[in-house]
């Protein structure tokens, strides 16, 4: 069963942006879309383990800050070379006191 943990406050992230979060030594990236929905993925790129939260979010795409690999952060799907493995995504929910993600 998954466990819900608090990742951040809702206003810690701007719209169309990303924030790094780690829990039990695992890196996550938390996203807030232009319409203020929250999403979560693994924090490191599947290509070369680069920290995704340093990358640029445009629309629903997060771009790796070093090799420009792109993912749709809602589904984790890779958008072309050099990405050949999808990014794992995690369920999120927003409570009065913040953004939660469900981890293993």
């Amino acid at each position: 069963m998954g466990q819900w943990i608090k990742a951040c406050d809702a206003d810690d992230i701007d719209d169309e942006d990303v924030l790094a979060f780690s829990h039990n030594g695992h890196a996550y990236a938390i996203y807030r879309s232009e319409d203020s929905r929250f999403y979560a993925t693994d924090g490191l790129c599947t290509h070369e383990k680069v920290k995704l939260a340093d990358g640029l979010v445009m629309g629903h795409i997060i771009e790796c800050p070093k090799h420009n690999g792109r993912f749709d952060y809602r589904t984790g799907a890779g958008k072309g070379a050099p990405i050949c493995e999808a990014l794992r995504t995690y369920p999120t929910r927003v409570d009065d006191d913040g953004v939660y993600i469900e981890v293993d």
Partner: protein
Amino acid sequence: MSEPLDQLVVVGAGECGARAALALRAHGWRGPIALVGDEEVYPYERPPLSKSMLVESLPIEPKAVVDAVQFAAADISFARGEVASAIDTAARTVSLNSGRSLAYDRMIIATGARARSLPIPGGELAMSIRSWADVALLRPQLRVGARVGVIGAGFIGLEVAAAATSNGCDVTVVESASRILTRGVPAAMATTIAERHEKAGVTLLLSHAIDRLELGDDATVHIAFADGRMLVCDLVVAGVGAVPNTELAEQAGLRVHNGIEVNDRLQTSDPAVWAAGDCCSFSHPLFDNRRVRLESWRNALEQGELAARNLLGADERQSAVPWFWSDQYDLCLQVTGMSDLATSSIVRNRPDGGQIEFGIAADGRIVFAAGVGVGTSIAMDIRVAEVLISRRAQPDVAFLADPSTRLKTLLKS
């Protein structure tokens, strides 16, 4: 009865050629695709060769772009370890050193570039880094205490210096110019990087002209300076630039000028032949249509895919903004655009210690940006700058200089 499908051939199996071959299939081509590569290993990423691949504690294995299984799945015929020796553009054939000949209807040349050899007596005593074979030769020699001479304080030389130092080597970098990274990196940033090297124990010898290299006792290599002094090394590595591999194209009668000349669709002077990556030069629409040749991983990947799409009829214009990165120690440097078009520069000092510099042209357009910082901290600012450059934007310079502003908001205006 249906017509037989055209034969497509890609010559060169680095990042660019491999991506081109995969893209041809991915974009729906159902006919035969052949890829010719002169190395014995499957296509791999070259950027780590001068970085992580030289660090002793890290695993040594090429980072594959594509493997045998993927080639089989994409039904790409890979002529591995085969050298293309001649192209006959009239007969549309490529001759291979093995004696085989491949017929083509349309072709992409992605022969890349090779390390420039050191143009001094004894220059052949210096090793270079361009291929997996080079790394296999060099890495075991970068042992604790080894005296390593690095000639050239450009990206490759400094990356080797950083890796060798972290292995415990005694490293001296020799550069004829008065500072490191003269090509496209602002002086303040070069200073930051030079200081980082010195802190790690690297000796930087700037403004040092080398007369020759000599073989010494116990397989040492001596760097003999123009002023008569001598530096004894266990090995010497040269990083003095790259030369495009254009011989095949020249022999085929294609137009060549600092690389194989291509138009803005990456087509050569022969309409059945495209060229992409380090081996080609093109007029850049964003930078006064000046002819440029780019040596970077991302360009290789993107142009390989673009050449493939255009070969299949896409008619897309090449307009990507030059971009590259370098890793040295915990620092990452990223550079985008064309530094020499800038007539003024704007500095942005990030609160995390990262430095950004933007180059502005006379008409107020942003044409260049460089950044250095720990990890990928400066990446987003440089990426925003790259988008602004591609849009020919004229951003407010006070906004660029103020580290409390959110650069990304410039993309919405």
